[in-house]
């Protein structure tokens, strides 16, 4: 199983600068755990203390926001593209 995961700029420090990484999982929860194994610290950035997705960061499987699918139980299959997208603020300064 190989799933492409798009890592946003603010989290690329944890993936050693990689914009795209591979993960093996059958659902979103498994994907986050797999990412954490390879890139320690990333789970804490994506999830809160209860393991729920933070409210200023979203996970999309292909183009769909998992909050409107089955949340962290949303299934992922080989070839899917997962994007982690945080709120960003830059503009004027």
């Amino acid at each position, binding site marked *: 199983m190989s799933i492409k995961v798009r890592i946003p*700029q603010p989290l690329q420090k944890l993936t050693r600068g990689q914009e795209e990484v591979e993960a093996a999982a059958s659902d979103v929860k498994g994907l986050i755990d797999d990412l954490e194994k390879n890139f320690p610290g990333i789970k804490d950035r994506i999830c809160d203390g209860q393991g729920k997705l933070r409210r200023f960061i979203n996970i999309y499987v292909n183009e769909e926001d998992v909050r409107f699918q089955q949340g962290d139980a949303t299934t992922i299959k080989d070839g899917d593209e997962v994007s982690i997208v945080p*709120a960003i*603020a830059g*503009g004027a300064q």
Partner: protein
Amino acid sequence: MILNDEQIERYSRQILLPKIGGGGQERLLAAKVLVVGVGGLGSPVAAYLTGAGVGTLGLVDSDSVDITNLHRQIIYSTDDLGKAKVEAAKVRLERMNPDVKVIVHKLRLTSANIMAVINDYDIVVDGTDNFPARYLINDACVLAKKPLVHGAFFRFEGQAMVIKPGEGPCYRCMFSEPPPPGAVPSCQEAGVLGALAGVIGLIQATETLKLILRIGEPLVGKLIIFNSLEMGFRKVKVPQDKNCPVCGENPTITELIDYEIFCGIKKKESE
């Protein structure tokens, strides 16, 4: 409004477009757009809306032109250093196109003043650089039912979306709450590629023109993500969230919030 000969000539290259024509140009000249934050995003937005002949352009910014702004805030010159951004921008824009009336709002938007400021405009463009302002503008536009054109960037990546209250999702449908202070570095700390700000700003300018002209498909319910390093765009779907705290079925936010108060972000002294 009837176009004069000079206007017909000035705007001829866009009047020629079948979806625009003289009627579209008249619509542009009658439009009132508010650009909040005249920086990396607001500069290209304001410049292109001015060029296109958007008749009334409101500019909101409380800052002055700093030398570190000039690599991306392309409407300012070295001569403008130290001047109020809105004043320097007004001079430059009105010189570019005397058809455009530039109204300056040299202030920082707060829950107390935002409704009065946005009230006079048809469309709001968010070119701010911080979460308290972004959430305040989103909430105010939802409550006032004003279309809002969102854009943001970080280092080499940017995002844009159009919010049409009542017709599609708002910013809180996507990210219901701002991150706690310090969780996300600002541009000041993180840096930004100047031309990236231009790309995102021009997506905002294009969407604004489409909204005024009522052509094409607005970027509603979709977030566009641009990566300048791989030179690619992606779109993700943004559904309207029935549990959204401001535009959902049972909104919990019914009045505006000044996040600065509890985000602890220091207010600028320069006002």
